[in-house]
């Protein structure tokens, strides 16, 4: 029994050694500053260690940690947004600011953040991360075929949400 989590710590250190750029790139798709990216990855590693008894090997450890990085990155994003609102007083973003492309990217970020977790993770790991489909499927603990289906479904949900933006 790994009473003090020492074996699991070694496994996480190996993931860190081999895949730190990958984990950071996932966080960088959500957070803008390098300091926040590193904070999110550190928080994810610590969460992974604390939740080590819940890892059942349904995906590889790197993929499991990658999904926790996504969650922690969004947590940090929400925390920073709350802090900024308290400091400045909340002002709705000026929809006319920035180019049309930048506005669409901003909307895409918001929509992806609000997707159900399996589709959100499919986008971050299966599309944004530039991993091969086989690697991404292994990270998510599913077959390549299932991952394709999740990505397809995620895109349908994203298109539906974009249409809602037009109607508001």
């Amino acid at each position, binding site marked *: 029994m790994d009473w003090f989590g020492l074996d699991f710590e070694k496994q996480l250190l190996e993931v860190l050694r081999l895949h730190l750029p990958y984990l950071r790139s996932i966080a*960088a798709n959500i957070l803008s500053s390098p300091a926040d990216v590193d904070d999110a990855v*550190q928080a994810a590693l610590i*969460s992974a260690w*604390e939740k080590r008894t819940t890892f059942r090997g349904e995906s590889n450890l790197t993929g499991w940690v990658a999904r926790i990085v996504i969650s922690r990155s969004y947590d940090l994003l929400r925390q920073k947004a709350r802090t900024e609102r*308290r400091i400045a007083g909340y002002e709705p973003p000026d929809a006319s600011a920035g180019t049309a492309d930048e506005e669409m990217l901003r909307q895409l970020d918001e929509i992806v953040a609000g997707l159900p977790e399996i589709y959100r993770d499919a986008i971050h790991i299966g*599309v*944004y*991360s530039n991993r091969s489909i086989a690697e991404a499927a292994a990270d998510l603990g599913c077959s390549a075929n299932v991952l394709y289906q999740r990505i397809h479904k995620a895109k349908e949900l994203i298109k539906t949400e*974009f249409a809602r933006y037009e109607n508001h």
Partner: protein
Amino acid sequence: MKITDATLDALLQRKAAGSVAPGTPKPEAFAAAFQNALRQRRRRALLRPLTAAAALFLLSIGLFVGTRSAPPRVPAQVRTEFAKLTFAQNFLGPEVGVVFLNDELATGERLLAGVPPRNRIALELVDRRTGFRTALAFAGADGDTIVLDTPQLSGEILLLPDDAGNLVVDLELQNQTTGQELRDVLVFDREHFRNGRMYQRIFS
């Protein structure tokens, strides 16, 4: 706006093309920071049974003293909560955010670790619909934030002084065991701290 498949694919490709995190920290430095954080958590985990035992001891003493001494200015229940907080804080160190949820200790991080946590707050939150009661006790400094991410409790507690000299406590917590969300903003006048009242908040 109605978006075509081609436009969406182009947007997703732009995001994918930009997914290189700036900076290149060395894995060794990252690993060292991670291992240091784990050492602190192991230390807290080992101390937790001792702190719980000490809290129980203090509770017993508090009840004993409460039945034998003259009526105190601060109610016995609140004195016990404050004693537990003070003991746990001194034991675990100023950088640790100490929160008791229904007598169970949850620890996190205090963002103002260098400032003594002079504000000790004991709350009872009552759900109007279910009658469910949640006891919450924590300590922090003015302008402090306690960040929690434990199997029992996650979220933040902010302690912000307002212009009138009151303390505004912003709770954004989730009880991970029950799924209950504890979100509220409470204003404490400084008289509260002098009298050490247990503050009861009824919410629906």
